[in-house]
C-alpha cells in the first residue's frame, strides 16, 4: 500500500527526516511514536503533500504511484487522508459544504457520478453515528468554535465519509478526555478493513490500548530507530524515549 524508502526531508534548510524507511501493507495499522519535534507531523505532511517541506532524497510510493509527484488534491482523491493534528478553522464555510465538495471531487476522479443531495445526507447521517457527532455540526463553519475534542471527532467523521485507502491520523488522541478517546477509537476501529491502511501518529501509548496496532515504530533523529509489535509501545511507556536514544547510541 505505502512504501517509503530512504526519505530525507528538510524544512528551511534544516534536516528533519534523515533516511526514513516504512512499509505499510493493505489492512495494516501502524503506530508511529516519538518525542516532540522528532518529525512525526513532518512525515504525515509529506505524505499528504503539504508545501514547505523539501524532499532531498528517497521515494514515497502509494499503490504503485509516485506520491511525491502528485498535487495534494490528487493524493486525496486517490485515497490518502490526513487527520490533522491542528484542524484549521474556515469561517463561513459549512462543514457539510466542504465535505460534499471533497467527496464529489473524489467521485468524479474515479469516474463515478456525484451523489445527489438525498444520498449524500443519508450517508452523512450514517457516518455521524460512528463518532457520535450531532447533526448540527454539519452546518457550522468548518472547525470554528469547535472544542479540541470536537475537532478531532470531526476529522474522523470526515475520514469515515471519504473512505480513504490510507489514513494518517496525526495525534488524533491528544486533547481528548477518556470518553472522547474511546468514541474516536471506536470510530477508527469500525473503519479498519482489509483494504484500508492506517498510520497512527501518537505521542502516548494510551491510544494503542483502544486501537491495537499491527506494528509500532519509534521515530527519533529523523529515522525509524526501532520497530516491533504493540509490546514496544508498552516498553516505551515504561522507560521513556530516553531509552531508545541509549539503545540507538
Amino acid at each position, binding site marked *: 500500500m505505502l512504501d517509503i524508502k530512504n526519505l530525507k526531508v528538510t524544512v528551511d534548510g534544516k534536516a528533519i527526516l534523515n533516511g526514513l524507511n516504512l512499509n505499510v501493507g493493505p489492512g495494516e495499522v501502524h503506530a508511529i511514536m516519538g518525542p516532540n519535534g522528532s518529525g512525526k507531523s513532518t512525515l504525515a505532511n509529506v505524505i499528504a503533500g503539504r508545501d514547505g517541506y523539501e524532499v532531498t532524497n528517497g521515494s514515497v510510493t502509494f499503490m504503485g504511484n509516485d506520491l511525491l509527484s502528485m498535487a495534494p*488534491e490528487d493524493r486525496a482523491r486517490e485515497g490518502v487522508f490526513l487527520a490533522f493534528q491542528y*484542524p*484549521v478553522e474556515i469561517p463561513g464555510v459549512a462543514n457539510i459544504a466542504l465535505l460534499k*465538495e471533497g467527496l464529489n471531487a473524489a467521485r468524479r476522479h474515479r469516474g463515478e457520478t456525484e451523489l445527489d443531495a438525498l444520498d449524500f445526507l443519508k450517508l452523512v447521517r450514517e457516518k455521524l453515528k460512528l463518532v457520535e457527532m450531532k447533526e448540527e455540526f454539519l452546518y457550522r463553519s468548518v472547525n470554528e468554535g469547535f472544542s479540541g475534542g470536537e475537532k478531532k471527532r470531526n476529522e474522523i467523521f*470526515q475520514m469515515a465519509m471519504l473512505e480513504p485507502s490510507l489514513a494518517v491520523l496525526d495525534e488524533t488522541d491528544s486533547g481528548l478526555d477518556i470518553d472522547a478517546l474511546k468514541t474516536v477509537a471506536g470510530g477508527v476501529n469500525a473503519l479498519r478493513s482489509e483494504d484500508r491502511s492506517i498510520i497512527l501518529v501518537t505521542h502516548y501509548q494510551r491510544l494503542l490500548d483502544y486501537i491495537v496496532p499491527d506494528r509500532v515504530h519509534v521515530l527519533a533523529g529523523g529515522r525509524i530507530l526501532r520497530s516491533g509489535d504493540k509490546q514496544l509501545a508498552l516498553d516505551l511507556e515504561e522507560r521513556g524515549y530516553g531509552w531508545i536514544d541509549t539503545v540507538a547510541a
Partner: protein
Amino acid sequence: MNTAIKELGELVGREYKEGFVTDIEAETLPPGLDESVIRFLSGKKSEPDFVLQWRLEAFHRWQAMECPEWAHVHYDPIDFQAISYYSAPKRDEDRPRSLDEVDPKLLETYNKLGIPLEEQKALAGVAVDAVFDSVSVATTFKDKLAEVGVIFCPLSEAMVNHPELVQEYLGSVVPPSDNFYAALNSAVFTEGSFVYVPKGVRCPMELSTYFRINALNTGQFERTLIIADEGSYVSYLEGCTAPMRDENQLHAAVVELVAMKDAEIKYSTVQNWYPGDEEGRGGIYNFVTKRGACRGDNAKISWTQVETGSAITWKYPSVLLEGNHSTGEFYSVALTNNCQQADTGTKMVHIGEHTSSTIISKGISAGRGQNAYRGLVKVLKGAKEARNYSQCDSLLMGDRCGAHTFPYLEVKNPTATIEHEATTSKIGEDQMFYCRQRGLSEEDAVSMIVNGFCKEVFRELPMEFAVEAQKLLGISLEGAVG
C-alpha cells in the same frame, strides 16, 4: 516569497472574460461639455423645462467646484472636455416595442454576457430594463407592474409622463450641490431608471437593470430614482458589466432612494466592470453617489453590494435615518485585484429617535489591489437611543495588497449605542492545504474560502443574485492554474 503565496498570485490573475465590443453604429456627440450640450441632451428627451433649468443650474455649480482628491485612490486627472456626453444606438427615433424588435446584435451582446432577456423573462419573473449605452432598449413586464400601480420606466420617460413625481423627488436626496460628481451627473445624466411603488403595495417582482458601457470615450451618467410610498416594499437589483477598453472610462452615477413611513427598499448591486489589465491600464473609473432617505417612521433601506470590477471605485451608499424607528443597512463585498483601487463604505446619519443601522463590510485584496473602507456613523442631537453595529473584515491574498479601515464616528447624543468590530486576516496556507487535502482543487479551495468570508453579505442578496455573485467572485479570483 513562499510558494503558497506565489500560487495564490497566479490564481487571482485571470483574464476578464467579458471584454468585447459590439459594433453597432452609435450616434455620438463630439467630445466636450458646455451649455449647448446640456440643451441638446434635454431636447433629445423632450424633457420638461424644469428639468433643463435644473440641469443648467447644476452645471453652473459644477463649474465652480474642484475635482476631489482622496487619500487612498490615485489616478491621472480626468479631462472632462475629452469626454462625449451622448451616445445612443442608431435607431433612436424608432425604439423597439418588444424584444423581437431589438437589434439582434444587441441581444447577442447580452447573451454573451449571460443575460438572456427572453430566458430571464420566463425564468425569474424579473422585469429587465436594460441600458445599452445611454438609451433604454428593452423594458419588460411593464404591464404586470402597471396592474398594481408600480411605475418602472426609464427616468427620461418618467420626466415626460410623471413630471409631478420627478419634480418632487429628483435631487431631494442627492442635491446637485452635494459633490463634484453628483453635480456633473445632475447636469448631464442621460439614462437611468425610475421606480414608484404606491402606498401599501408590495412590488410583485424583483426589479432589475443591467448597465453596460460600450461606446469609446463615452462617460455614463445614469440617474436612478426609487420612491417607495407609505407601507410599500420593493427590491431592486442592479448589475453591471463592461467590455474591454484601453482608455479609462468615467462612470458617475447617482442613485436616490426615498422610503416613506413603513416602507422598505432593498437595493442590491453586483458590479463587474472591466478593472483594467494587470498593469492597471484601461478599466472603469466609478464615482457613484448613492443615498437613501428614510423619510417616515419605521422606514427601512438596505444596500447590498458586491463589487469586483472597476479600476477605481469610489462610493458610499448611505442612509439618512430621518423617521423615528427607521433602519439603515449596508452589506458590502469589495474585491480588488491587480492594480484596482477601491474606496468604499457607507454613511449612516441618525436623525430620528430610536433609529438603527447595521454595517457589514467585507474587503478582499489580492495582487496589488488596495481596498479602503471608510464608514461614517453620525448621530445627531435629536437622535435619542440610536444604535449602530459595524463590522469590517478584510481578507488579504498575498503580500503586495493592502486593506485600510477608517471608521469615523460623530455622536452628538449620549444615549447612542455604537459597536464596532474589525478584523484582518490572510487566506492561510493552512486553510488552502486543509481544503486540498479533502480533495478540492486550488481554485475551488480559494473560491470556497472567499465565499465563506463573504457569507454574511451574500445571504442578504436575492437568491439568483447570490449565485451570480458567487460565480463572479470565482471568476475574479480564479487563475491560470489547471
